[in-house]
């Protein structure tokens, strides 16, 4: 038993040294995580702020001015151009100078005063339809508020019905709150997976793997020795993102740290298992890299990181059941934002352990049995 531990420790030490002795490897494993978590944290938002709009006000009346004051007062939009004629609409949208054009017709005030419905036209650049839809929704809520106010000012009754909205776990409905906890899992997984996938492939390519195989180490020991260092590196990376999330972006953590780390360990174990299997399968580093990227793209896009799993077609939702990233992201969100305990997140942890239980023995078996 002591001999086993001794051999294992020696191998782990060697693996850590071979990754960390090179200064550029050290930099590349820890600095980008910090930068990315900040950059992506700021980038990840579907919420409109200061969206550029252009105005074509053919009415030039007090009523239209009032409506525009409402629109400018929200902070969602900023006016970048005031157009003089309908002919100017197309260029402004085509060249992406403005996301939308608000067009108020010449009869706007007369229509309102006459008790008719006055139409405000909104022309949106839907090259990004998500942004266009939210711009339309924001504008429409501005107009609703305007209508209500006008009605009340003229002695109409207050609307009889109000909707009181409350959001659980994310009071201001910020996309960042949804995104940053997911990054705690995602960023560490990406580099860990690549690191592991290259580890055996590199030794194969350089011929040192055969030397490792003739040492007293058993394939299982080699597998454990190769699995632990990337997990440690992954945990450090997760910690970096966790610190940025908690202290830079100030997103409060609801769950317990112990639970979080238990789950992260299971998550990284599954990732390392996948990585080692790739590594054992590939003959050289280029193959290992390619297989990794082939897996990473679907894993990331079908993980719920950026788009909810529930919006995917049923077949793909089933496919996500084999995706460790899906469980990892769901797990971190539940623990971090919802404060879920270990028993609640077992449905996330068990599949991760299952993936590890399949991939790690496969890798160990492939170490010896792959025909090079």
């Amino acid at each position, binding site marked *: 038993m002591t001999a086993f531990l001794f051999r294992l420790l020696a191998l782990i030490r060697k693996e850590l040294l071979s990754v960390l002795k090179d200064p*550029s490897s050290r930099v590349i494993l820890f600095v980008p995580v910090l930068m990315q978590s900040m950059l992506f944290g700021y980038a990840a938002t579907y919420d409109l702020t200061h969206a550029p709009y252009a105005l074509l006000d053919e009415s030039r009346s007090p009523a239209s001015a009032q409506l525009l004051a409402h629109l400018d007062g929200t902070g969602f939009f900023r006016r970048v151009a005031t157009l003089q004629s309908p002919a100017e609409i197309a260029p402004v949208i085509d*060249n992406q100078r403005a996301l939308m054009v608000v067009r108020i017709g010449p009869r706007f005030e007369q229509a309102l005063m006459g008790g008719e419905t006055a139409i405000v036209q909104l022309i949106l650049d839907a090259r990004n339809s998500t942004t266009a839809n939210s711009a339309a929704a924001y504008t429409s809520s501005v107009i609703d508020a305007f209508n209500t106010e006008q009605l009340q000012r*003229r002695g109409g009754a207050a609307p009889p019905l109000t909707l009181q909205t409350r959001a659980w776990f994310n009071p201001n409905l910020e996309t960042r709150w*949804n995104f940053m906890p997911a990054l705690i899992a995602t960023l560490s997984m990406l580099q860990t997976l690549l690191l592991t996938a290259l580890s055996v492939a590199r030794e194969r390519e350089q011929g040192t793997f055969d030397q490792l195989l003739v040492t007293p180490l058993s394939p299982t020991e080699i597998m454990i020795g190769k699995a632990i260092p990337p997990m440690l590196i992954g945990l450090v990376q997760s910690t970096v993102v966790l610190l940025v999330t908690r202290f830079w972006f100030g997103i409060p953590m609801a769950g317990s740290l112990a639970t979080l780390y238990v789950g992260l360990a299971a998550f990284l174990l599954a990732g390392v298992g996948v990585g080692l299997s790739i590594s054992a399968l590939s003959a050289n580093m280029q193959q290992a890299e390619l297989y990794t990227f082939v897996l990473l*793209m679907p894993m990331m896009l079908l993980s719920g990181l950026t788009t909810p799993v529930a919006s995917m077609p049923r077949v793909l939702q089933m496919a996500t059941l084999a995706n460790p990233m899906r469980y990892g992201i769901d797990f971190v969100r539940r623990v971090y934002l919802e404060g879920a305990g270990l028993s609640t997140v077992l449905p996330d942890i068990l599949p991760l352990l299952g993936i590890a239980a399949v991939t790690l023995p496969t890798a160990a078996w492939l170490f010896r049995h792959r025909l090079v």
Partner: protein
Amino acid sequence: MTGRGRAQDGTPDGAAQGGFWRRLLALTRKEVRQLLRDRSNLAIGVALPVLLILLFGYGISLDIDNAKVAVVVEDTSPGAADVLSGLQLSTYLTPLPVRSMQEAEALMNAHAVNAILRVPGDFSAALARGDGRLQLIVHGVDAATARVIQGYVGGALAQWGSRQADRQAALRAGSGTAATAAPFGSVRLEPRMWFNAANTSTWYLVPGLIVLIMTLTGAFLTSLVVAREWERGTLEALFVTPVRTTEILLAKMIPYFVVGMLGFAMCLLAAHFLFEVPRLGSLWLLLLASVLYMFVALGVGLLISSATKNQFIASQLALLTGFLPALMLSGFLFDLNNVPLVVRIVGQALPATHFLELLKTLMLAGDVWPIVVKDCLILAGYAVLLLGAAQRVTRKRIA
């Protein structure tokens, strides 16, 4: 730049000029063989784009439909049912009747519903007093879905409100009492979605996927090719032959360029036939744009490869500088209009951002010349810069 390097390249006599094509051809043949020897390369260059575009074109969508809302009605009067009737009509929401608040909260905790709409017991009475309150609780973890649900529920109730106002006005008119206020119309919004008549996120996600796929084939396949030769020492062996750096790099680019463009053609076919994404701009411009971006991607890969001379570092760098920024910062998912200035500057500095803008414009909007010219020039600039840098870095090491 060393004087020696320039002198080495600067002696083209007639024989050397003739030798250029011969050497380039020989080297290219060697690279092609090396690429083809490993079948996985070709499979990844050509089959992968198709697989990815199928998977993601059908798989990822930012359109939310059938969001589940648990409806707890504690007030059984017909008034409450009337208010809620608007919800049934919406295709975006699936109302799920639930008996009690506890049950609804349990469903929400289990992520079985995205929101709870509660009609309190005294709702009808309060509504009669003009103070009806409905409670909407959304699951905030998925903030985007939560906002959409909030919008839809609000919209459905607003429709009820305006129906109600019409009814009351009709009543007042019927009873013959004089209107208390002067008639004042309301403003209605008429939104028109340009460039995306179907109003589907697939149309703008597919161009983004093409960018990702071309980055993958261009930058990743090449990021290892020079580093590998350095690691194995075969590049030094090449240097003692008469071939020049330019020829080595060109020979390394050509096969991967062909593979990348094949992948692009596959993507374009899939976009057209499977997802029916329109192509309003000219095909030639689209091809020009993709050729330029392919050079940029190859430049990134070759530069990484020759600068690091180490396959491990090269692959990590390719992941960090190629794939992740193209996914997160190019405007593929997150609109750069909404991000803080610093992030926008970083995003604008990425070639992928400009290629994506170009693709979206050429496919969805048509030949908008100011954008086409600007982005093509930027891409061409990057291509020259990156390939020049790759050549310079490789040459420096010889001297």
